[in-house]
């Protein structure tokens, strides 16, 4: 395909001026750091959930106590400075840990059937996990996003990150403000002296918190085998967040809840979801669930 010459070089003077003004547009300092802290809050809660689960099973190699302490530290710092972010984080916890396994099974946030046995953490399962590449899931994940609806993931999709710095054209465009690709340590970013100054008490839009909380309630009910309550929570979710960013998750939870009641609508909805999101990681999950429930 031949692409046209770029307006920033070949457009009218006015067009070039307009486009060039976008260069170097950047947010206030600290935005990136704030995002890292908010992400850390989410992660820390995930780590806690996983560890809680792990105590029921056996030791998990990947988690050292030190790391966990650090995560908790991150969360504590965040509470002090940007409480709002942590509220989101803790709601995410509630979502993730909301399937309280009465039998002590590890918390799973993949909305799996709650009747799973406690996994033995032996080498064989290690191997099982290894064969299930998150990569395949994720390519699919990206493909289910709205703009992708015209097609499924292109084969070249995996190249998304290969952004060539080559060529003479790299100069005029808005770029170059990427930070070092050297990953800095999360803990370090939090102890950075000017972090507190740069962390206004603003939060992720409240909608996301609400979404997470509502879905958390549904998931908790489902974990407790209480499908009616789960469905009520999901109805509430649909009413409150018709355009919710977690609507896929809500749809999958609904199908699981219906399947739990042996409701024939589960199959209908599942089929519709899989047709609409053939490449979604949830599609695979739904196929498995429906196959299991037949």
């Amino acid at each position, binding site marked *: *395909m031949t*692409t*046209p010459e770029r*307006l*920033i070089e070949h457009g009218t003077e*006015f*067009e070039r001026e*307009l486009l060039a*003004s*976008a260069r170097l*547009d*950047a*947010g206030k300092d600290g*935005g990136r750091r704030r995002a*890292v802290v*908010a*992400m850390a809050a*989410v*992660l820390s809660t*995930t780590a806690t959930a*996983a560890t809680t689960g792990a105590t029921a099973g056996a030791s*998990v190699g990947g*988690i050292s106590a030190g790391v966990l302490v650090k995560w908790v530290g991150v969360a504590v710092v965040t509470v002090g400075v940007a409480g709002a972010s942590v509220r989101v984080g803790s709601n995410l916890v509630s979502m993730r840990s909301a399937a309280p396994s009465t039998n002590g099974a*590890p918390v*799973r946030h*993949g909305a799996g059937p709650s009747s*799973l046995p406690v996994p033995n953490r032996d080498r064989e*399962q290690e191997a099982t*996990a290894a064969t*299930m590449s998150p990569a395949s899931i*994720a390519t699919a994940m*990206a*493909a289910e*996003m*709205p*703009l*992708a609806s*015209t*097609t499924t993931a*292109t084969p*070249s999709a995996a*190249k998304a990150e290969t952004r*060539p710095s080559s060529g003479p*054209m790299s100069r005029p*465009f*808005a*770029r170059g403000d*990427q930070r070092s690709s050297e990953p*800095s340590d*999360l803990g370090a*970013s939090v102890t950075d002296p000017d972090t507190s100054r740069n962390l206004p008490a*603003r*939060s*992720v839009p409240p909608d*996301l918190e609400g979404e997470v909380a509502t879905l958390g309630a549904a998931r908790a009910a489902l974990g407790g085998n209480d499908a009616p309550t789960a469905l009520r929570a999901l109805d509430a979710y649909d009413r409150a967040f018709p355009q919710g*960013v977690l609507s896929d998750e809500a749809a999958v939870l609904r199908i699981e809840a219906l399947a739990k009641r042996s409701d024939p609508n589960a199959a209908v909805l599942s089929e519709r979801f899989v047709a609409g999101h053939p490449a979604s990681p949830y599609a695979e999950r739904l196929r*498995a669930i*429906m*196959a*299991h429930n037949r």
Partner: protein
Amino acid sequence: MIDPRSSPNSRPIMSDVAALAAERVEERAVGPARSRRLTAIANLHYAFIWRSLRRLGVAGQAADDAAQQVFVLCAVKLDVIAEGRERAFLFQTALRVAMSLRRDFAQRREAFLGEDIDQFVDPEPRPDVAVEVMQRRALLDRVLDMLPMDQRAVFVLYEIEGLAAKEIAALLSIPVGTVASRLKRGRETFQSGAARVRLQMERGAKR
């Protein structure tokens, strides 16, 4: 639902296996590697996502919150984002967030009918940025507002971020041909819009 690939008797505990495997992947990912990955994602892509949100029509201050929302969602879904697909995930999420924010804004704006929205001033003027540049940016955003979101995303990535069509296709998970057609239409709208805005400016200056 009928899935021809799985008969009722084949691997009845498939869901258990899948769930377990997913869980194991997740648990193994918790820890330093995971935190490093998240930090690296933010370091690499924050500025790009913030800029993208702005050019997709998210107003100045809201862009900070919107960017944070995008990255929090990335943390939530980290386990299903493949290595190398982070940027695509982030951009597509940013696109969704921008669209949802714009819907909200459009609804709110109806309450203010009659006010001249052209008089809208960035609530946080930046002392370090020349007034002239800010004015041009405002004009740029006004012209970009004339583009439907699908064309706008492609246009911004091509004309402002300087990506190649192939990269854009990968980022949006759409065919290159679709990129080309959206770009073509986007450019036409942009060029006619820029001409119109310029004419308005000249008329305004004469008055």
